[in-house]
């Protein structure tokens, strides 16, 4: 999978692209935590528009980012999930923990 970022005015957007499964999750968590340490953002947006597949490992990544942002006193949310990740998010019920924003 690929991870790209953009940063402006306290908001870090992390673009996750490709497939996020257990095999990829450990590296993804490490990369994202390094980014959060580097930017110390107020808001962290996980943009899932380029994510063609994720399973419950993706849920673990999202929950971790959300907890980390709470600890930093900031907020995290998901934007533009593709269809398959959206179904996994719905099945796991994490939209109650991490808001999902659709199509900007």
């Amino acid at each position, binding site marked *: 999978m690929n991870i790209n970022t953009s940063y402006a005015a306290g908001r870090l957007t992390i673009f996750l692209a490709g497939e996020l499964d257990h*095999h990829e999750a450990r590296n993804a968590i490490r990369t994202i935590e390094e980014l959060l340490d580097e930017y110390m953002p107020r808001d962290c947006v996980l943009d899932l528009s380029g994510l063609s597949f994720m399973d419950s490992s993706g849920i673990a990544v999202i929950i971790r980012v959300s907890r980390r942002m709470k600890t930093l006193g900031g907020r995290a949310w998901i934007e533009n999930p593709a269809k398959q990740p959206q179904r996994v998010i719905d099945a796991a019920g994490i939209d109650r923990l991490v808001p999902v924003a659709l199509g900007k």
Partner: protein
Amino acid sequence: MNETNYIKLEFPSKSCNEAFARTAAAAFAAQLDPTLEELGDIKTAVSEAVTNAIVHGYPDTLGRIAMRFRIIKGNTLEISIRDWGKGIADVQQAMTPLYTTGGEERSGMGFTIMGSFMDKLRVRSSPGKGTTVVMQRFISPRQGKR
């Protein structure tokens, strides 16, 4: 049970095989002419079951994982994923949402997702002998199908 086609695969419990396993499931399911959503559900459920076998069946060793896909009753895909690893002492507890004995990259939602994406989910396990997960998903025939 009216079996019309099947395939059997076996691979070692390496995490790089997770992507292979779900892609193989999608390739086999294609003959039932599933929608993209149905394909996504099948891939996700297979990914969860194979990941469980890798993470919980063989936490400290490499072992065998066997997958069998069958088409039964005309339009139902049956998937069986088996390991000969540690096994699960309390299957009921393992299937509870958010319950996990895995590491930071696990969420405890694997069985919940398998259960909600498949029509039937059966888990048999005995400690020290291994675990078998059998799942079924009916694929609705589409209009205008050849």
